[in-house]
């Protein structure tokens, strides 16, 4: 537990400097690496979600091949890699969002606390109540800020006591309350991009999920809004398990405890398949990666 506390302290230090810049990844940045994590010993906290030889197909095309990795409790796991390497696809297997694409098919085992998420008796609706998602482009509903946040608890029939309090709590949790408390009835689309994304985070935590999946949540935001979201992620990691897909390696280094590097391999027939190359403590992955391909990618020799 001592380790965890220490880790959290380091997080809050980092979070005071949301726009902290990390030099281009390379050998010279050992001292900066992994501000968030790398304090876990071998093993680390228990896995909430576990992927075991997971492959995802779109029609006949195997988009991601045989990926196995744990997602550890109350930690931020970052998925990085070049475009088309299957990071987002893997993310979407974790709350069955791939179900919405008719041609998508998942093989292998994705488990949540030991339960196979793709077992026939599993209700994907229940899965998504526990494993929420924040998308690349902020996508608030064209409704009031209040209704955006209250939507999840309402549709899931959550017992929240006083909805006003619940909405306030969620907005505070997403560090948005002070900016919107006077205009809860105005349209969510009237907010700025960064505020919209925090509204989407508030909306997600309002259903109290255990895991939050974030699919490039900052790619449509400016650096200041990005800094706010990153800061928020540190705070959320105290209560939630977070998986974030990002194109930005500095961001992965800033916010995550673990980083998984994916790459796209071209097979003999010229077809691209995504593949997990390395999962490691973030500090280790960015300073002393186990795999040559990871090193090439983070030092900019590839990708």
């Amino acid at each position: 537990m001592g380790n965890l506390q220490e880790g959290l302290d380091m997080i809050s230090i980092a979070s005071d400097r949301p726009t902290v810049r990390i030099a281009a990844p390379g050998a010279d940045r050992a001292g900066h690496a992994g501000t968030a994590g790398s304090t876990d010993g071998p093993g680390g906290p228990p896995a909430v979600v576990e992927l075991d030889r997971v492959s995802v197909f779109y029609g006949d095309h195997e988009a991601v091949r045989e990926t196995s990795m744990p997602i550890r409790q109350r930690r931020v796991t970052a998925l990085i890699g070049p475009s088309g390497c299957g990071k987002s696809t893997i993310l979407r297997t974790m709350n069955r969002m791939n179900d919405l694409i008719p041609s998508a098919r998942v093989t292998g085992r994705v488990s949540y606390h030991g339960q196979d998420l793709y077992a026939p008796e599993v209700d994907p609706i229940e899965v998504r109540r526990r494993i929420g998602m924040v998308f690349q482009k902020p996508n608030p509903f064209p409704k009031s800020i209040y209704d955006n946040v209250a939507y999840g608890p309402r549709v899931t029939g959550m017992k929240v006591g006083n909805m006003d309090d619940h909405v306030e709590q969620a907005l505070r949790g997403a560090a948005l309350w002070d900016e919107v408390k006077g205009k809860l009835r105005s349209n969510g689309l009237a907010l700025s991009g960064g505020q919209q994304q925090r509204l989407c985070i508030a909306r997600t935590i309002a259903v109290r999920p255990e895991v939050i999946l974030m699919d490039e949540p900052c790619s449509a935001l400016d650096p200041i809004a990005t800094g706010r979201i990153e800061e928020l992620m540190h705070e959320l990691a105290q209560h939630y398990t977070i998986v974030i897909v990002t194109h930005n390696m500095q961001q992965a280094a800033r916010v995550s405890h673990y980083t998984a590097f994916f790459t796209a391999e071209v097979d003999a027939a010229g077809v691209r398949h995504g593949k997990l190359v390395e999962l490691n403590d973030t500090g280790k992955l960015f300073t002393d990666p186990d795999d040559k391909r990871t090193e090439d990618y983070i030092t900019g020799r590839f990708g």
Partner: protein
Amino acid sequence: MTAPPAVLAAPAPSDPGAALTRRRVRVGETLFRLALLSCLVVAFAFLVWIVAFAIYRGWDRLDARLWENMPTGRVSRIEGAGVQSAITGTLWVIGTTALICLPIGILAAIYLEEYANNERWYNRLLELNIQNLAGVPSIIFGILGLGVIARAMGLGFTVLTASLILALLVLPIVIIATREAIRAVPQSIRQASYALGATRWQTISRQVLPIAVPGIATGSILALSRAIGEAAPLIMLGAVTYITFNPNGLDSAYTVLPVQIFSLVIEAQAGFQRLGAAAIVLLLGLLLLMNSLAIVVRNRFQKRW
């Protein structure tokens, strides 16, 4: 492979600024623009001509007699006649048509857009048929109504028969318009809803439909204004008679404005024709009103993303 020269040297004009001022008249450009404009003028001019002609011919009959009085078959009474039964008949038929075709059309569109897996052959077949149905001549629908609804089902020449046939006739339009409106709802909204643990029906009823309502309303109004102007199928269905009473139920005999106009303008006497012209103005006014309503609804509730 030789590399191209890094810089293509531009000829140095003596006065670079002056080269910009030689404005030319581009003949092709102007001709094409005129051709486009004249196409528009042709379409618009005919509409204006028809409306002006109808107003001119029906001018002295454009008064309260038109909607206060019933039609007549007698020349001696034509000056006191109106088209009240056709107006009420139109309202009855269109109202019933709306009640039948809007729920069916909208629900069918929701199925096709949100539930149907269009990789399945039967869903694709359904889709193809709806598109084909939109192209079937309306007189064919009239024959269907005569054979199946009026005779085999025994509903006779009634408001209900006419409404069922008009509903079938405009159903493809409602479905296609509703599908467009539903398809215009961004996928990200659906994903956000699903990601919060909403079911498919919750997502559709609380997110997709409210956003799609303006588009659905616009399409529905336009479909109904198509139905309101239809005469051909109803000619087969007993509307071509001088009805001198207002319909009082779904099983009532009826006539509608387009058919009444047809009956009036084929008479030889000028009195009938003037009344017909006045009824044309009334029908056009009604159509214009509905189409403007559609535009207002569309502009008023349009969502911008």
